[in-house]
């Protein structure tokens, strides 16, 4: 359907569902609707599908904007990917290392490899720092720096976490909030950690050393979605920027957008938005209170640019990507696209790399002319010893604004204010990484889109719960009952035992047992009453098989029962607490292993 017809409201009598953004979230929403016989209209600001996970093509070379592994714990998403690409989805064995001080460190970190590379003195210092951290309990965990140092020692933190994290975020680690780490490191859930330790139930991402990847990069996946949506009657309009969203009485009624410089207005019955949430607020400016506008202005994003270089060399290095921790170069990560899929490079004698620079829009790197950036990337590639400058035959730059939502001091309050405002608009939903200002991975973003589409169809999903609570995903996989059961068992097993209550209970029952045993023999009577039971007097001074003796025996056994039960409960609590502590620490260490993948 032509845009002019849309603007005239010619929907053939159907509900108009507008989706803003053709990234993974928007496309997933559109696809889900199309699968149910509904034809949505998608507006995409750029000229291609995929959003931040799109694939650029230059002279037959495919460039992924950042390197996107297709890896998910959500079966539904995995099935969807398979359905879309089938045999064009490659299984890739992951290899990525850290480059630091001229050496390559295995990643995820392997202690033996790290210690050999660091040398004996540095290794000892790191171990001492780690041991020192283990002896410090109840330390403040407000910032990322504190969070890592408290667990693994400040030396390990400075060696492996500080430089790269600061390169990515552009702010000191002591200004990054610990809850950012908590969200990135999913293994932090105590219940999940215990469940994994006991039942081996969690499929931790870190264990996965394989992932799937489309033959020609992620763009291939999104083009497949595009094709399915268009075949099903949905529309995707490129170069179409949504400028304003009209609303009446707490409902969205229309969308204004520009296409090729031409403004249009179309009515809308439902809107699903994956555009950055601050821009969404601006698009609703006619009804937005000033505090919400202020909150939107308070949200910040980290951008990045990638300098793609074509190198005349058959093999550069064996990794798919390298994390560059070395502070002497600006590049943060280097992608080697040929190792993701050989089909990313048209000539087997050539290679292509993506030199990733994390920056803020408008900063020195961002505004640097392309030629200078290519020269910088070429010189840094040579400086790192990965290729000779003269081997670089071509290069181009891709700038990606608003790539990462920043979790700074005020983001939580700002987001809450905006969310509260948007909740008041019944037929508007926000999805995706930037749409929700949440650090969603690709699969989580897709799931938000799918849930939003299903909500339009009458289901009730809380889109904001995706990636907030892994159990929500379990629910989607209809495994909620099993999850709840294991959670309940864990809660029952690992809670603190009330020492006093247990001691009194055991003492009372023990005392009663001897009390009744004594009385029973008295009632039975006989020439000599209870000669054997009276031997207890050897331990319980003053005891005899008499009524008085029964009370004395009760007192003694109550005392000893109480004492042993209290000690039992105390030791049990101590051992459980230690087990929980170790399990959680192990889970954190385990999760921290793949932290850089999540930055």
């Amino acid at each position, binding site marked *: 359907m032509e845009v002019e017809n849309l603007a005239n409201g010619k929907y053939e009598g159907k509900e108009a569902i507008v989706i803003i953004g053709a990234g993974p979230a928007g496309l997933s929403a559109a696809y889900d609707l199309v699968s149910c016989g509904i034809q949505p209209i998608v507006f995409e600001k750029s000229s291609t599908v995929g959003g931040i996970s799109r694939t650029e093509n230059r002279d037959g070379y495919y460039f992924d904007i950042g390197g996107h592994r297709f890896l998910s714990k959500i079966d539904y998403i995995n099935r969807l990917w398979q359905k879309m690409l089938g045999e064009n989805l490659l299984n890739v064995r992951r290899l990525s290392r850290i480059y630091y001080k001229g050496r390559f460190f295995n990643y995820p970190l392997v202690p033996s490899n790290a210690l050999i590379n660091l040398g004996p003195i540095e290794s000892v210092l790191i171990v001492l720092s780690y041991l020192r951290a283990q002896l410090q309990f109840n330390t403040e965990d407000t910032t990322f720096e504190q969070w890592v140092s408290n667990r693994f020692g400040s030396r390990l933190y400075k060696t492996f976490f500080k430089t790269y994290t600061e390169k990515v975020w552009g702010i000191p680690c002591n200004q990054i909030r610990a809850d950012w780490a908590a969200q990135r490191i999913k293994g932090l859930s*105590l*219940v999940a950690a215990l469940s994994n330790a006991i039942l081996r139930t969690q499929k931790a991402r870190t264990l996965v050393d394989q992932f799937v990847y489309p033959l020609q990069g992620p763009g291939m996946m999104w083009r497949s979605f595009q094709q399915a949506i268009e075949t099903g009657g949905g529309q995707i309009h490129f170069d179409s920027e949504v400028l304003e969203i009209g609303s009446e009485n707490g409902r969205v009624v229309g969308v204004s957008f520009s296409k090729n410089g031409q403004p249009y207005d179309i009515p809308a019955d439902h809107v699903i938005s994956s555009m950055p949430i601050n821009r969404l607020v601006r698009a609703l400016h006619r009804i937005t209170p000033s505090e919400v506008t202020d909150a939107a202005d308070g949200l910040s994003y980290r951008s990045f640019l990638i300098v793609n270089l074509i190198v005349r060399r058959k093999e550069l290095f064996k990794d798919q990507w390298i994390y560059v921790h070395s502070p002497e170069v600006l590049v943060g990560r280097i992608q080697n696209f040929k190792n993701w899929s050989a089909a990313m490079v048209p000539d087997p004698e050539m290679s292509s790399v993506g030199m990733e620079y994390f920056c803020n829009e408008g900063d020195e790197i961002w505004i640097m002319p392309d030629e200078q950036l290519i020269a910088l990337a070429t010189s840094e590639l040579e400086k790192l010893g990965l290729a000779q400058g003269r081997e670089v035959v071509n290069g181009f730059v891709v700038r990606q604004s608003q790539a990462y939502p920043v979790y700074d001091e005020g983001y939580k309050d700002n987001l809450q204010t905006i969310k509260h405002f948007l909740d008041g608009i019944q037929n508007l939903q926000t999805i995706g990484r930037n749409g929700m200002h949440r650090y969603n991975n690709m699969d989580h973003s897709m799931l938000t889109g799918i849930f939003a589409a299903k909500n339009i169809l009458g289901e009730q999903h809380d889109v904001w719960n995706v990636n907030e609570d892994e159990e929500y995903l379990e629910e989607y996989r209809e495994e909620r009952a099993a999850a709840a059961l294991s*959670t309940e068992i864990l*809660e029952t097993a690992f*809670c603190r*035992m009330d020492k006093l*209550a247990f001691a009194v209970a055991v003492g009372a029952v023990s005392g009663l047992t001897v009390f009744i*045993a004594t009385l029973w023999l008295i009632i039975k009577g006989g020439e000599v009453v209870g000669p054997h039971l009276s031997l207890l007097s050897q331990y319980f001074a003053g005891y005899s098989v008499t009524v008085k003796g029964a009370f004395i025996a009760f007192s003694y056994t109550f005392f000893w029962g109480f004492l042993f039960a209290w000690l039992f409960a105390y030791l049990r609590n101590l051992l459980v607490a230690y087990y929980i502590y170790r399990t959680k620490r192990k889970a954190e260490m385990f999760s921290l292993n793949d932290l850089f993948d999540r930055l």
Partner: protein
Amino acid sequence: MKGEFQPKNEKVIVHGVLWLNSKFIGFALGLTCGLIIFITTNWLVIKGGDPVGPNLQLLSQYFIGYRVSFLGSIIGFIYGFAVGTLSGALIGWIYNSIAGFRVRLDGKSR
């Protein structure tokens, strides 16, 4: 991790109190007591001697009909199971009552 970011079930583990299931405790203790009597009786029966197990025979003062014989071991199992179950259930009930009282006293919710 700061409290505000703690999931609900994590708070339960960290701050909650263990509750005993009286039925299970009773069953477990009953089974244990019953089996102890069953095994110890049969062990003495297998060992033999004259007389067989005079000290264990003293249990008959409480468990009417009990003897140190195979049939006696089954009777002993039943008695042991009954006493153990009762004791275990009582421990569970008393524990839960006191722990519940203390939780209420602390103003915490179960």
